[in-house]
């Protein structure tokens, strides 16, 4: 959208700028989508315990740098395409429709794998805490169903956490986190502080592949600034600045917190202590440390913010899945009813409910089969999503190169070629190590089939996507022609061509 603004004198520009988002708002959206407390209190100790990932602090830094390289090309391309909040739009514009559809399905699996496990995590932690505090006997799935219901209702009513509430919660979360970290660092086990887990040498260790998958799971949400592109005051700058600032904040917070935790327990004890803290009646590690150093009341406050963090993250990822499903329904890659808006709330109701139904089925499955909500749903599921995110980032980096190869659109060589190539190398290396060490991540035997099944699920989904694209091309060429180009493209006006009724057919040609 080319707007030449005679600064300040355009009534239209001024009026539109009024309800557009500024950089601080978008930064808040990005960081809260990443859900700091959920990651630090929920994911990190579980990662330490299950995968023994002692190099987690370094892994967070490594992933931050990798994602920063990725974001150079990502935010640049976001300026030139519509539907910039969806990885498949990049894949389609850069690498063609078949890859685009495959990426769409990969992304759907990724975001569902990031979303649904949050129900499990919430159920586990909250039921454990309530049982401990008030001497109750709640099942994990009781609490999981409660949050499922809450998120489902809010999704349909389109009640998003408005930016003020979000900002307050986020500031509280980060403040508490910094205090927790300070207390941890200030009370090192054995009196000395070790920086080993932050050292680059960790890259060679066996646990590194596992650690990066855990790390990127924590970063999920970093890509969300691009969603708001067209709603921002200055499209060129806002998405870029928010993304990089958000990434830095998240990376430093996570690396710092994961390291601080290991300082407080002693780096040789972090795995053991984390494992202890995963028992249903034990306090989460971070809160146990908080209780020791800062008192029980502070630990309780931290837990409440931890719960709201999980709720906020659930809402955020639920909306992401709904948004993807809605956009795909609009383009008729997925069944068209998913693309319906027409409700008073403006919610993509069908898409939202579909996601809720899927979540419900997963919860029922886990409850009935007696599977572990923390390790198997929250941790395995979440890291499956994290792995998928790596795949999406890899595909998108290649797509960036493809997109700018035909027309550089004024972007520099660094932006459109060098940074993406570096990102591809980095992400490719990380994916390779992750697949190599997936059994370490899952803490299963090296020959356990699960270590192949989980990452391979993305190959399966991609294959289905390619088949779907081929099917669409054959059966519905008008739909196929407009995939991923976004409804903005006037040259590809996505209107159904339709069929005239029998009476009208004689002598009237097909329109569009």
């Amino acid at each position, binding site marked *: *959208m*080319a*707007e*030449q*603004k*005679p600064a300040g004198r*355009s*009534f*239209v*520009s001024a*009026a*539109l700028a009024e*309800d557009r988002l500024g950089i601080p708002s978008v930064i808040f959206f990005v960081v809260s989508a990443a859900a700091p407390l959920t990651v630090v209190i929920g994911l990190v100790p579980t990662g330490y315990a299950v995968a023994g990932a002692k190099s987690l602090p370094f892994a967070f830094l490594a992933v931050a740098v990798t994602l920063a390289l990725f974001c150079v090309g990502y935010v640049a391309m976001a300026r030139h395409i*519509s*539907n910039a*909040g969806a990885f498949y739009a990049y894949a389609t514009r850069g690498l063609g429709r078949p890859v685009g559809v495959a990426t769409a399905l990969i992304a759907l699996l990724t975001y569902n794998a990031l979303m649904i496990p949050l129900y499990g995590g919430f159920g586990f932690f909250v039921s454990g805490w309530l049982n401990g505090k008030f001497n109750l006997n709640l099942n994990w799935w009781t609490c999981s169903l409660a949050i499922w219901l809450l998120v489902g209702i809010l999704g349909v009513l*389109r009640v*998003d956490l408005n930016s003020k509430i979000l900002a307050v919660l986020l500031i509280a979360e980060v403040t508490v986190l910094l205090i927790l970290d300070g207390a941890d660092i200030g009370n090192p086990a054995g009196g000395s502080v070790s920086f080993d887990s932050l050292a680059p040498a960790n890259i060679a260790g066996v646990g590194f592949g596992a650690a990066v998958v855990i790390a990127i799971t924590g970063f999920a949400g970093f890509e969300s600034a691009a*969603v*708001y592109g*067209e*709603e921002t005051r200055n499209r060129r700058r806002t998405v870029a600045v928010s993304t990089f600032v958000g990434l830095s904040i998240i990376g430093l917070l996570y690396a710092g917190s994961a390291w601080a935790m290991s300082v407080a327990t002693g780096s040789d004890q972090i795995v053991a202590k984390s494992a202890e803290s995963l028992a249903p009646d034990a306090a989460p590690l971070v809160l146990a440390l908080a209780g020791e150093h800062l008192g029980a009341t502070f630990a309780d406050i931290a837990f409440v913010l931890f719960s709201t963090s999980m709720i906020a993250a659930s809402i955020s990822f639920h*909306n992401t899945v709904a*948004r993807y499903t*809605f*956009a795909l329904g*609009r383009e008729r890659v997925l069944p068209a009813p998913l*693309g*319906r*808006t*027409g*409700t*008073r*709330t*403006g*919610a*993509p109701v069908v898409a939202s409910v579909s996601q809720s139904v899927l979540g419900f089925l997963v919860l029922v499955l886990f409850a009935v089969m007696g599977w572990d909500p923390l390790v198997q749903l929250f941790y395995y599921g979440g890291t499956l999503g994290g792995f998928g995110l790596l795949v999406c980032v890899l595909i998108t980096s290649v797509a960036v190169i493809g997109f700018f190869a035909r027309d550089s659109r004024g972007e520099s060589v660094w932006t459109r070629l060098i940074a993406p190539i570096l990102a591809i190398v980095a992400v490719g290396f990380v994916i390779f190590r992750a697949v190599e060490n997936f059994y370490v991540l899952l803490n299963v035997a090296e020959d356990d089939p699960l270590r192949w099944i989980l990452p391979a699920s993305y190959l399966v989904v991609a294959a289905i996507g390619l088949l779907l694209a081929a099917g669409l091309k054959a059966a519905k060429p008008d739909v196929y022609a407009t995939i991923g180009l*976004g*409804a*903005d493209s*006037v040259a590809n*006006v*996505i*209107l*159904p*061509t*339709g*069929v*005239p*009724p*029998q*009476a*009208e057919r004689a002598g*009237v040609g*097909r*329109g*569009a």
Partner: protein
Amino acid sequence: MLVADEFYHVAQDESSGKPLLHARILGLGLAAALLGELMLAGHLGAGDGNIVVINQRPPEDALAHTVLDQIIAEPQHRDIGIWLAFLGKTAPDEVGQRMLRAGLLTRSESRGLLRTTVRYLPTDRSAAAWPETRLRRFLTRGEQLNVHDGLLAGLVFATDLTRKVLWDGQPQSFQYLAWVISNLPPPLRELVAKTHSAAGNVVVAHRT
């Protein structure tokens, strides 16, 4: 009735006067209707995503006159999307006021616990239901629509009100609607397409 007024009625619950669309999407639909009115009257054209001023003579309707003046005053903005967004902010109020003055709507205040809600109720419920009834009749019977009704049908599609108008859900009615839209004159077709995509983008960007 003017296109925007008819769209307002279609997008409204006849008994309570409540809008059936989210405020932003209603705004987009009404903004498109206002632009459409100017197109039908020959003042505006469209191509390549931009609107074009064809005839600067003041339109008869006061609101249309205001809109045209605004467009003429800002020649640097021609993208349809920008005008949909800008006009959409105030369109529900402006069109509502126009309909009040024309006696199509009447103001009704209801006092709640915390605040007073103002609603605009149709003065004549069967007249308010007529645009929708008319569209439904033509679409289900496959009868020819004039360009005014074609535009109205397009806006119904663009704002996802289709299932309200075609509540009996016969597939051939939906297909005929699609055919009608794709056979609109190109400027109107572009307007409808842009509105549809703007409505979708608003949902995707969480601004609903």
